[in-house]
C-alpha cells in the first residue's frame, strides 16, 4: 500500500463510500475511548488490590503483636475479621466487573474486525476511486512463488513485474554470483544484460557496488556518474538512470542484484525505488527457496548413495563370512585391507566381489 494512501483519507472516496467511511471512523473513536477508560479502570483496580494487600498485612502484624503482648481484644479481632471479609467480597465484585469489561472489549474487537471485513468485501466501495489495479504480472508472480515454480520462471516474472510497475522502466535484469563469478541470470532485453556484463568486465558500476554490500545503488546517469568513470565509454550507458538492489547476503554465493534501467533521459522517483525494493525482496525469497531445495535434493541423493553402498558392502561381508567362516568384523577388515592395498574404495571392492564372487587382485 503506498505510504501516502492514508493521507488521501475520505476525500479520495465517493459520496456513499465517504459516508460509510465517516461512520466507521466515529465508531473507531468511540471504541478507542472505551478502551482507554477500561485501561484506566484496570490500573485503578491494580492500585486498590495493592492497597488492600498492604492493609491485610498491617492487620496481621497488629494482631500478632497484640497476641505477643497478651493484649487480646475479641471485639477488635472480630471487627478486623469483618473488615477482611468485606474486602474479600469487594475484591470478588471488582473481578466480576473486570470480567464484564473484558467481554465488552472482546465485543468491540469483533465489531472492528467485522467493519474491516465489510470495507474489504466485494460490495464495499473501492479504497481509492480511479486507482490502478495490480498488474497481472504481480498476480502471476504471487502464484509462481506459492506454487513452487522453477527459479528461472520466478525470476522472469519478477522482471516482468518490474517492467510493468516501475514508471519509466525500459528494461531490467538479474545477475547472480555463480561459482564466484557474477553472471546475468535473467533479463528483459539483451542490451540490459550487456550493460550488466560490461559492469562486471570493468569491475565498476552500481551493480557490483550493490552486490558488495551497499544494498541499493541508484544513479541518474549510468554513463555520466563520476563514481564510475569507466562506464562513460559503454554503449547505451549515457543518460540512462539505474537502480540496483542487492539480493541475498553481500557478496555470497547465490546472491546477486536486480538492476532496473530507465528509458534514456528519464529517472526514477521514490515510488519506483520502493517498488523495486519490494520486487527485489521477492526475488531474494525465490533464490533462498531454490537454494534450500537444492540442498535438500543433494542431501537426499547423498543418503541414497550411502544406503546403496551399505547394501553392497553388506552383501560382500555376507559372502565372505559364508565362504571363509569369519565374523562380520573380520570380513570388513578383509575388505578394507584389500582397499588399502589396491587403493580402491571398499564399496568398489564389495561390488567386484559380489559380481565376480572373488576379491579383486
Amino acid at each position, binding site marked *: 500500500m503506498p505510504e501516502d494512501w492514508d493521507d488521501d483519507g475520505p476525500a479520495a472516496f465517493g459520496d456513499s463510500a465517504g459516508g460509510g467511511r465517516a461512520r466507521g471512523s466515529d465508531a473507531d473513536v468511540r471504541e478507542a475511548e472505551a478502551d482507554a477508560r477500561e485501561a484506566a479502570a484496570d490500573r485503578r483496580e491494580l492500585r486498590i488490590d495493592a492497597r488492600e494487600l498492604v492493609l491485610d498485612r498491617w492487620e496481621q502484624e497488629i494482631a500478632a503483636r497484640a497476641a505477643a503482648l497478651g493484649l487480646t481484644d475479641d471485639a477488635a479481632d472480630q471487627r478486623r475479621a469483618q473488615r477482611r471479609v468485606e474486602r474479600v467480597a469487594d475484591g470478588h465484585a471488582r473481578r466480576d466487573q473486570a470480567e464484564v469489561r473484558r467481554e465488552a472489549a472482546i465485543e468491540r474487537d469483533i465489531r472492528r474486525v467485522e467493519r474491516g471485513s465489510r470495507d474489504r468485501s466485494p460490495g464495499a466501495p473501492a479504497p481509492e476511486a480511479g486507482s490502478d489495479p495490480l498488474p497481472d504480472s504481480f498476480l502471476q508472480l504471487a502464484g509462481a512463488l506459492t506454487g513452487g515454480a522453477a527459479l528461472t520462471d520466478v525470476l522472469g516474472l519478477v522482471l516482468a513485474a518490474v517492467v510493468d510497475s516501475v514508471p519509466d522502466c525500459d528494461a531490467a535484469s538479474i545477475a547472480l554470483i555463480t561459482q564466484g563469478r557474477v553472471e546475468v541470470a535473467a533479463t528483459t532485453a539483451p542490451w540490459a544484460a550487456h550493460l550488466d556484463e560490461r559492469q562486471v568486465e570493468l569491475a565498476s558500476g552500481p551493480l557490483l557496488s550493490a552486490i558488495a554490500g551497499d544494498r541499493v545503488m541508484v544513479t541518474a546517469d549510468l554513463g555520466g556518474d563520476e563514481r564510475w568513470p569507466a562506464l562513460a565509454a559503454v554503449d547505451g550507458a549515457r543518460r540512462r538512470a539505474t537502480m540496483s538492489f542487492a539480493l541475498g547476503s553481500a557478496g555470497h554465493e547465490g546472491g546477486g542484484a536486480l538492476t532496473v534501467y530507465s528509458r534514456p533521459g528519464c529517472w526514477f522517483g521514490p515510488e519506483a525505488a520502493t517498488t523495486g525494493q519490494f520486487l527485489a525482496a521477492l526475488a531474494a525469497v525465490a533464490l533462498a527457496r531454490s537454494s534450500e531445495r537444492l540442498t535438500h535434493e543433494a542431501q537426499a541423493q*547423498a543418503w541414497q*548413495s*550411502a544406503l546403496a553402498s*551399505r547394501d553392497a558392502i553388506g552383501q560382500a*561381508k555376507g559372502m565372505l563370512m559364508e565362504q571363509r567362516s569369519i565374523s562380520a568384523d573380520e570380513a570388513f577388515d578383509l575388505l*578394507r585391507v584389500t*582397499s588399502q592395498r589396491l587403493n580402491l574404495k*571398499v564399496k568398489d571392492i564389495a561390488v567386484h566381489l559380489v559380481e565376480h564372487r572373488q576379491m579383486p587382485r
Partner: protein
Amino acid sequence: MTAVESGRFHLACLALEQARIRAELTVGALFLRYIGLGGVGSARQVVDHCSGDPVLPVSQHNVLVQAVNERFLEVGAPERMAFL
C-alpha cells in the same frame, strides 16, 4: 581394555578428529560415509567418539578411519590414517 590401551584409544580418537578436519569433512558428512560403509553406531556416538570419548568399539573406530581415508583418496591426498 587395559589403562594403556584405553589411553591409546583416546589418542586415536583425537587423531581421528584431527584427520577429519584435514580431510575437510563435516561430522555430518563423516557420519554419512560411515553409514555407507556399514557402520552401526548412532550419530550421537560418532560425534562423541570424534570428540575424544571412545564410545564406539575398535571395529567401528576402524570404519570411521576407513571413511576418512577414502576421503583422502578422493582428493588425491597421500595421507592415510592407521587402523587400530
